[in-house]
């Protein structure tokens, strides 16, 4: 486990916990190279595989090499990635995550580029004039501006906060907008506008419904954190400020590691103090016994948040 570089003081004091989580992740790797969503499962999930690949780092370990090869192998012919091994459809959010997870892998550049091109073609259903017109005239129960669209979870559905934020993070890692990717800045700007539009009135985000039938819907810590990661260079925007304040108030109350880990990453990305939160996270009981593999990966990423933010393309 030496390859996992521990930087934070809080982490150094509890390296045992972190090492046990990393060892558990290592145990859970499937022979084909991926990771399943749950400990009990043998079906490789792309989100688990991408987050764990980021958590174990991009060095030359056998686990990392197997994981990267697995990711390249299961890519769909159209450039997208499926939600899990054997799936028959494209998943927009996992395509973004795969592009992020393969960032430093030279042999995966063609795979990553074709994923990015697929993402450029993928858009929320409200991008179509007919549905936009419907949402502007007949179907107005959810308050949102359909002119501002981002990315759906899966094709042929609306834009939602998390897949849009992941796509923005994936695009932010591109060295340039060239070679057929000239429109990337426009899509990213539109995605950022969409995130601002879908925020909850008091700050923060949930899946993407801030107001429904005139009622305010509460924000979620993880959705808020993921949106804030994508908006890491918009710290001064009033929506981002309100959301950061909400997340800063909420994070110390969290006892669920998934949400707490995302909150740590987002607050660190916006230069807020996270030491006590990392201590709380690593102090949660039986972390390595958590059945959810994504949660374990997130714990490792949050515990070494500087490296994790660099991997996610968040510039500090």
């Amino acid at each position, binding site marked *: 486990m030496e390859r996992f570089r521990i930087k934070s003081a809080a982490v150094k004091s509890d390296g045992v916990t972190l090492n046990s989580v990393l060892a558990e992740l290592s145990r859970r790797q499937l022979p084909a190279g991926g990771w399943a969503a*749950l400990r009990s499962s043998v079906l490789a999930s792309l989100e688990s595989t991408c987050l764990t690949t980021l958590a174990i780092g991009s060095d030359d370990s056998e686990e990392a090499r197997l994981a990267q090869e697995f990711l390249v192998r299961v890519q769909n012919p159209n450039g997208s990635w499926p939600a899990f091994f054997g799936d028959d459809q494209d998943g927009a959010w996992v395509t973004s995550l795969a592009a992020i997870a393969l960032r430093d892998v030279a042999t995966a550049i063609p795979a990553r580029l074709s994923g990015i091109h697929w993402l450029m073609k993928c858009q929320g259903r409200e991008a179509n004039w007919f549905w936009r017109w419907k949402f502007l005239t007949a179907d107005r129960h959810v308050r949102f501006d359909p002119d501002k669209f981002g990315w759906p979870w899966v094709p042929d559905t609306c834009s939602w906060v998390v897949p849009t934020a992941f796509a923005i993070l994936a695009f932010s890692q591109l060295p340039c907008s060239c070679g057929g990717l000239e429109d990337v800045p426009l899509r990213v700007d539109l995605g950022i506008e969409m995130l601002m539009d879908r925020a909850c009135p008091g700050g923060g985000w949930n*899946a993407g419904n801030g107001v429904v039938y005139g009622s305010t*819907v509460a924000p979620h810590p993880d959705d808020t954190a993921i949106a804030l990661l994508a908006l890491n260079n918009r710290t001064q925007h009033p929506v981002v400020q309100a959301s950061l304040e909400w997340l800063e108030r909420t994070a110390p109350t969290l006892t669920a590691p998934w949400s707490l880990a995302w909150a740590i990453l987002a607050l660190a990305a916006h230069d807020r103090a996270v030491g006590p939160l990392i201590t709380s996270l690593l102090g949660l009981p039986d972390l390595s016994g958590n*059945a959810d593999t994504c949660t374990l990966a997130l714990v490792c990423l949050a515990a070494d948040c500087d490296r994790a933010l660099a991997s996610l393309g968040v510039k500090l």
Partner: protein
Amino acid sequence: MILSRRKFVVGAAALAAGASVSVPFFLPKYHSDRRAKRSRVAILNVEQYSQRIDEVLASGLRLFRINVQGKTVILKPNLVDYILGTAINTHPTLVLAAAESFRRMGAKCVIVAEGPGHQRDTELVLSESGYRDSLRDQAINFVDLNRDELVRMQLRASYMGMKNLWLPRTVLGADFLVSMPKIKAHHWAGVTLSMKNMLGVVPGARYGWPKNILHWKGIQESILDVCATIPVHFVIADGIIAMEGNGPLNGTARPLGKIVLADDPVAADATCARLMGFEPDRIVHIREGAKFLGNLSLAVIDQAGEDPKPPTTPFRVVPEFRHLYAL
């Protein structure tokens, strides 16, 4: 009249084209009729969530011929999200009481399983809504259906126009599946009852949060296709504190003081709808479900416990569903 060969061919082609367009509208959209000759429903009066629920539920279950001896029982509560002070979710006290009852009845294994539709952090929903500690204390396993291993299933009805859905292995492997909804008004479906509750089995890790594909394919249609594919064997509906108005998240608590038990999801939902002051056959998925999933008519429902009397004031709903009110 002399019919030339050319006219005959043109006429036959027109007839075939017409038939191919119109016949699908008249053919049933379900593959098999699962209705029992008679269904049984029991309405139990329970004013609050307390330890007493154990005894009330156990005696209520004795009104049915249930055999779970040596079987795997899956309890599917309605866990959508957590908002402090609201009656969004099936209360954990009722779920624990059900687990205890089925264990006493000889179940090999009782599992609580759900895939929250709005909140990605299932563990957060479990801990905030009081499930996590209670389940651990009672040594009851919980399976996150949003992330469970998936099996591609051919749908046994074709209301939403999809042939297959990826569904969780845990639910497909259940010997006895119990839908445990919170009785709620719902702004897209009219109501959340035992059939609507089954949309929680559709995995977020495949279809996203929310499971938006189901909205695009039609919520009523999705409910029918999912319920046709995954049979509900029993219903325990939580109406002790129900929800009216802008459900499933932003409605207001409505004390109803009832638990509804049934061996048929359509009969259960029709009964709950009556208790809410609605005409059940005005709710699309209940009306259509009554053609093949269960019984709606009072004439074929054996009623135990209380009668399904409508309330003095019906449940409030969003304007689009005011047509549900019984006259």
